[in-house]
């Protein structure tokens, strides 16, 4: 203190104040030191006692893990032909924080590459809902010329970044669209069901339908991580590369299908004046169950779904009476019609109630109570035994024997042949079809089974429904003799061993012989010599099969009376479905086919023609034809 000099006298007024103010100053000072003590203690608590905890929190702040998207696996046919592959996808993204003129910029982009009002709406919504630094997709799948044009003007498009990303293309002309399905951005339901954070990435695509969806796990791969240091607004400050966290690309999926055969089959559906016929065809290996062709017609271009459908595309597809999006080969339930007769026949043989040699007289119709059941041949077939009944497809014969067998015995055989059940060929979307029983009708319709129902079922009409796939499986089992063949689409998918078919091989041989007579004996409904043409590789091969004509409407009495049943004169929608099942070669079965052509022209001809062509092509491509031709050649 400087107070070492003599102090002046202090006024009396100030005396009590001075001591008091000093006391109170010290009291406050002590309080102040106390507060500093508390603050210091708090600092100690934060920086020493809880330092570890806060260091972790600080690192949590500091580091983000950015997801690296895996490359999606490709889908190939049995020979490795790519059916779905990844391609360069030229696209434009906008980073909103880099521009103040979002509207103007989008207008300018639109002048070079039009942005539809719907796209525009989506872009603006994305911009609103994401942080400003997140790139928002403006346009993708831009063709190269437009992309170059946009790149040239990029300087006038603030906030726009052009990039070449991963796209998905389906090169095979749409004939695999139903099988492959397509990919798209994950919806809210997908995200609910699948916790993989990849789904939340705006540029990530998942399988929506078909193989793309069913094999999603294999195709997707696993995301990688990129450790990045970010600031409070999420902007990356720096990257911390770490090779261990690269994305794992998805695995390729190989299908049992044969791309060229599928293409060939699709061509067979073309008509001269009505575009592609509507329907489905399935070619199956009778030994392994591998599907060589699984085609629904008309095809559609799945690439449209990836790039985003325009309204007119959508309308055209939805309004098309041939329903191109509908996967008829596995999801189309059709009355199998006369192709069901093999099941009835086999049931008869198995039952031992019917003597196949014993003829039945067909007068063209059968009276049951006050109802009349007609044979397709009005004038009747006369006396027919079992083999002839199949060969000529005599309805009356089956009406007769089915009454003896009863529906449940027929249904039992039909099921064992593979009808009425859903096959998981891992593309989803199939149906089980219907093999009716008394129990089924009671539960489903609440009414009792009537004999008339059995008669209808015996010719594959009424309640019976099957898909082309099921018909192919049925035929494959008949041809296989020993095992209950199951269809397979994805190579490497582990299938349970086939169960024994458990029919008397002699009975099956009898059925096959009858089917042979249909296609190979004069008088058969699908008779044609040299069914696969005269190509040396298939010449001499024999086809066994069965035709069917699926009724889509009741036939009026007037029509019957006038005899007008010519399909071609009816409107498309009212014409019968044309059905064919078959297998070849007859002596050494290799492939079975199930074909349905919706409203397919006159009788069973259309489906039989397509089946013959496709089976022949399958045999040619299989190489078996060569060996067989060489064998027969050598024998001669």
């Amino acid at each position: 203190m400087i107070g070492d000099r003599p102090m002046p006298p202090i006024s009396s007024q100030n005396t009590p104040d001075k001591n008091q103010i000093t006391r109170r100053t010290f009291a406050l000072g002590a309080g102040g030191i106390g507060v500093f003590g508390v603050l210091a203690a708090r600092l100690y608590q934060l920086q020493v006692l809880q330092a570890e905890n806060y260091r972790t929190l600080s690192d949590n702040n500091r580091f983000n893990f950015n997801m690296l998207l895996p490359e999606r696996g490709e889908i190939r046919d049995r020979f490795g032909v790519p059916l779905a592959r990844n391609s360069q996808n030229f696209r434009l993204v906008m980073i909103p924080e880099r521009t103040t003129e979002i509207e103007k910029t989008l207008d300018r982009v639109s002048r070079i590459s039009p942005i539809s009002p719907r796209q525009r709406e989506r872009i603006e919504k994305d911009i609103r809902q994401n942080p400003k630094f997140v790139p928002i997709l403006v346009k993708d799948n831009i063709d190269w010329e437009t992309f170059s044009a946009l790149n040239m003007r990029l300087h006038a498009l603030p906030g726009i970044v052009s990039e070449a990303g991963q796209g998905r293309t389906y090169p095979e002309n749409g004939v695999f669209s139903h099988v492959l399905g397509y990919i798209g951005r994950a919806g809210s339901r997908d995200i609910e069901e699948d916790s993989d954070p990849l789904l939340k990435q705006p540029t990530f695509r998942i399988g929506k339908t078909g193989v793309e969806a069913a094999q999603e796990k294999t195709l997707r791969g696993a995301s990688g991580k990129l450790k990045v240091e970010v600031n409070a607004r999420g902007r990356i400050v720096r990257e911390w590369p770490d090779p261990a966290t690269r994305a794992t690309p998805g695995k390729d999926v190989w299908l049992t299908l044969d791309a060229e055969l599928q293409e060939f089959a699709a061509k067979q559906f073309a008509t001269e004046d009505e575009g592609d016929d509507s329907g489905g065809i399935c070619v199956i290996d009778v030994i392994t169950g591998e599907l060589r062709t699984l085609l629904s017609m008309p095809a559609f271009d799945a690439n449209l779904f990836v790039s985003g459908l325009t309204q007119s595309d959508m309308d055209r597809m939805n309004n098309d009476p041939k329903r191109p999006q509908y996967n008829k080969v596995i999801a189309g339930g059709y009355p199998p019609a006369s192709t069901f007769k093999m099941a009835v026949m086999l049931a008869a043989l198995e039952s031992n109630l019917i003597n196949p040699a014993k003829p039945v007289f067909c007068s063209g119709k059968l009276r049951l109570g006050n109802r009349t059941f007609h044979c397709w041949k009005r004038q009747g077939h006369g006396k027919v035994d079992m083999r002839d009944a199949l060969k000529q497809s005599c309805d009356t014969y089956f009406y007769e024997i089915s009454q003896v067998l009863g529906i449940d015995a027929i249904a039992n055989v039909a099921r064992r042949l593979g009808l009425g059940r859903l096959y998981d060929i891992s593309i989803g979307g199939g149906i089980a079809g219907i093999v009716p029983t008394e129990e089924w009708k009671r539960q489903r319709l609440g009414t009792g089974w009537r004999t008339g129902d059995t008669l209808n079922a015996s010719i594959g009409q009424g309640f019976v429904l099957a898909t082309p796939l099921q018909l192919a499986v049925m035929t494959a089992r008949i041809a296989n003799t020993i095992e209950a063949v199951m269809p397979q689409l994805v190579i490497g998918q582990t299938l349970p061993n086939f169960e024994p078919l458990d029919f008397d091989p002699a009975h099956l041989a009898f059925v096959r012989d009858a089917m042979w007579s249909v296609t190979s004996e004069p008088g058969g409904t699908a008779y044609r010599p040299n069914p696969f043409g005269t190509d040396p590789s298939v010449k001499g091969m024999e086809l066994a099969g069965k035709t069917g004509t699926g009724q889509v409407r009741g036939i009026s009495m007037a029509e019957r009376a006038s005899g007008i049943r010519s399909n071609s004169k009816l409107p498309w929608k009212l014409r019968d479905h044309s059905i064919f099942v078959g297998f070849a070669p007859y002596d050494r079965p290799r492939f079975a086919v199930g074909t349905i052509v919706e409203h397919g022209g006159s009788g069973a001809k259309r489906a039989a023609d397509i089946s013959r062509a496709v089976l022949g092509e399958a045999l040619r491509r299989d190489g078996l034809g060569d060996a067989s031709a060489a064998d027969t050649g050598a024998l001669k």
Partner: protein
Amino acid sequence: MVARGGSFRGAVPASGGSLTTKLFEINWLLPTLVGVLGLVGVTMIFAATDGVWRYGALQHFVRVGFGALVMLAIALIDIRIWYRLAYPAYIIGLLMLIGVEVFGVEVNGSVRWLDLGVARLQPSEVMKPAIVLALARYYHDLPSDRVSHIIGLLGALILLALPMALILRQPDLGTTLLLGTTGVVVVYLAGISWRVIGFASLFAAVGIPLFFKYGLKAYQQERVLTFLDPTRDPAGASYHITQSKIALGSGGVNGKGFMRGTQRQGEYVPENRTDFIFTVIGEEFGLIGGLLTMGLYMAVIGVCVWLSLQCKEMFAKLLILGLTTTFTLYIFINLGMVMGLAPVVGVPLPLISYGGTVILAVMGGFGLILSAHLYRGVELPRSG
């Protein structure tokens, strides 16, 4: 400038002398400590702005320098002038606050600034030394037996309540509380009786909850509530506190090193150039840096208290202690806020936080303290 004719009591300090002589008689410890704190501010602002001088560090340096000149100029001016200017200064401050009310510039939702054309001024900062001047003079003039008298109390209450009400309207809760507490401390030091203190405490116990309900804006209530329960709004109000604590805590004992604070680099702590600058100190220099900073502040406060003890006049004592109280409260509220012990109210860390008016006000205040000490031998009149 100083009236030479003033009567000096005794030889302390050595008679009048030239300005140069006076300059040597200033207690230089205080300006040195203040200067060091100002330089700490320059360094930390430099770090907070990622090492870009022109984002604040340079301005702060210039302001500290200018503030030092102002401080010394004020210090050299005779205490009697300040005594005479006490009420005028108060009235000018009051008028400026009213001016804010009328012509104020809005920043971040509250009107605190007065645009003077050349510079923007924050009148509430001017009011801080002004209220101390006014109260010091008021109690200097008030006979000690009247201090606890109802009239004596009323006078002080009016002096205090007017600026508080105006600042609260801006709204600026932090400054209001700071001003009020300073006033209460001055009244306490002036010798108010314990009976009155008891009554006032009782009144506060009832008044504060009422004030909370009716006197605070919704956002201020929210801040207080969030302070009491930070989970109320993890992304909003308590984000400040949480990120601030992370910055401090992750600094540990030694800190992450100068310019190496990751919380700072990531811009996680908002306002870390101004009110939250202590997070930069804590993160980059750790507990050591934090305690050293607090030590510097304690030294400044200690020196001020020591200077007050050497003064005899009531005006000088109350002036020094009042201004020191304001300075101390700045520190307490700011550090408490940064460490998550006090609500988030906009109170800067004096001399370190970026902000022009605050530096001028604080350094001007130190000028007054130095002046009161320098002229401690001067007898002040007592106008009833």
